[in-house]
């Protein structure tokens, strides 16, 4: 029976990102969520367990406030969680997140398959999965839209620019999943209640060797300027005509 690890990130919900003074990012009134595609990773790990048995462990690296995310993740079906937390884990680089995860997974969590989302909703760098596989020295498949496991053999459909590659490898391995691999469940009240009874192992900075250093520096993070003219029309006939007239004047109608 395969043991699965589903990795997830607790992120700022981008729908709440506002533009502050001088174009700086205003994150003062944001809400947080499990990164969208990580919900697909959690769902797929649970789906594999439902077919083949095994244990699903959810793993995250984050700030202490991400504890809410651990509960959310557990309500989606994993058996237990590892919460690697420290106030210093707010703006980790992908290289650092992968290094921390590798450190914890290597010695503490038996696994056959690691599942990550294709990328996080906040930074969408799409690096933690492949970097984690490389550090652990296991096969890696990114952009996966379908998986099947027979014994220790993993077959995955991988979407590329040219089409779909059917790839196979031997477990243990890591996959990063695309959103169309499944439809994540919406946890019910009972799932949420059950989640609080599940075991969460908390790991702090003291339990880890020193962090790898920065490889990049963020010089600025500004809101993208998407401002347009914002001229509004109603659905009345005259207004629709005025709208078309505007298109003509802009020279886009030939």
């Amino acid at each position: 029976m395969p043991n699965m690890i589903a990795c997830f990130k607790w992120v700022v919900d981008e729908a709440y990102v506002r533009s502050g003074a001088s174009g700086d990012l205003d994150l003062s009134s944001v809400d947080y969520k499990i990164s969208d595609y990580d919900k697909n990773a959690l769902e797929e790990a649970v789906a594999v367990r439902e077919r083949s048995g095994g244990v699903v462990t959810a793993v995250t690296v984050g700030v202490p406030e991400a504890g809410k995310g651990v509960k959310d993740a557990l309500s989606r079906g994993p058996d237990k969680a590892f919460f690697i937390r420290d106030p210093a884990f707010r703006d980790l680089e992908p290289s650092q997140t992968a290094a921390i995860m590798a450190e914890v997974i290597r010695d503490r969590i038996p696994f056959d398959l690691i599942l990550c989302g294709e990328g996080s909703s906040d930074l969408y760098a799409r690096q933690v999965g492949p970097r984690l596989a490389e550090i652990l020295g296991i096969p890696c498949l990114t952009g996966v839209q379908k998986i099947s496991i027979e014994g220790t053999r993993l077959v995955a459909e991988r979407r590329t620019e040219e089409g779909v590659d059917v790839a196979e490898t031997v477990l243990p391995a890591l996959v990063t999943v695309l959103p169309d691999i499944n439809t994540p469940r919406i946890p019910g009240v009972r799932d949420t209640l059950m989640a609080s009874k599940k075991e969460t192992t908390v790991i702090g900075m003291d339990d880890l060797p020193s962090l790898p250093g920065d490889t990049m520096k963020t010089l600025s993070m500004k809101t993208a300027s998407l401002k347009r003219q914002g001229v509004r029309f109603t659905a009345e006939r005259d207004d629709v005509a005025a709208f078309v007239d505007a298109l003509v004047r802009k020279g886009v109608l030939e």
Partner: protein
Amino acid sequence: MAGIWIFGETRERTLELLTAGTSLAEASGQTVSVILRGDESLVKEYLSRGADEIMILPEIAGDQPLEGYVPVIAGEAARLSPDLVLFPATTRGREMAARIASCLNTGLCSDCTAVSWNPESEAFECERLAYGGAAVQKIAFTAQPAMATIPPRTYGPAPAKETGEGALRHLPEPPPSPVRIVERKKRERSARDIRDARIIVAAGRGFVKQEDLEIARSLAEALGGEIACTRPLSEEYHWLPDELCIGLSGISVKPQLYIGLGISGQIQHITGIRDAGLIAAVNKDENAPIFQMADLGIVGDLYRVVPELIAEIRKARGE
């Protein structure tokens, strides 16, 4: 100084990266090397379009994935310390870049929309989008080599230059990959390539059923444009093929005119139309975020508005 390296996945992508690479090489006083896989007839073309050196990867067996070259490229980079390594931001290019960056303990800037050389700090800097496209992040590299993936079509193809001379070097054989490709299914294009379309009519969740997309099609036809959609319509409902999905996880377009029908305006979709000339929207919800990002908007039910719109367009054209 081992210069700027470009991973040449396909000809089209490589010519784009050569545009970025050669201008950065000029600014930073470096040379440009292309890591070429496969067709050696491209050697001449890459040299004539600005490459100073070509590193040729040996052919691998048909069941080996492209990522099998990761140990070879990482080994060569560890040996020669390039200053900047560029990959195309494709499925395979992204994975290879991330794994090589991990091998080299260095930083990788994903999906860079701009790469530049800062002569004062003597460092490469990159810009990329964050928070679904709501923010622009600017970074500087503090480790070597600097690495970046660049989305397709961010740069135009590099023009041919007069000189076409350069060095050739063969790279060693990679070890067998633990991943085997058992089948390669080529995508049958089920839709036209709309990335160069002049006018695009995009459909969103405001459409109740698949048949209703005829409304969007009629408008596209009246305008001489193409139809497109948001992610839910292609990925969740499968009403339209993936190739027509605009946004962060789909394609980016830059038409002269974009009209969004029944599209709320989630940032991930808007990111794909940020370079459109004119953005127009029809939505019955006056608070839909798309109106904040549109030049022209009609607040109304698309089912009622679009037929009138088509009639007015025909009238304006004297039809």
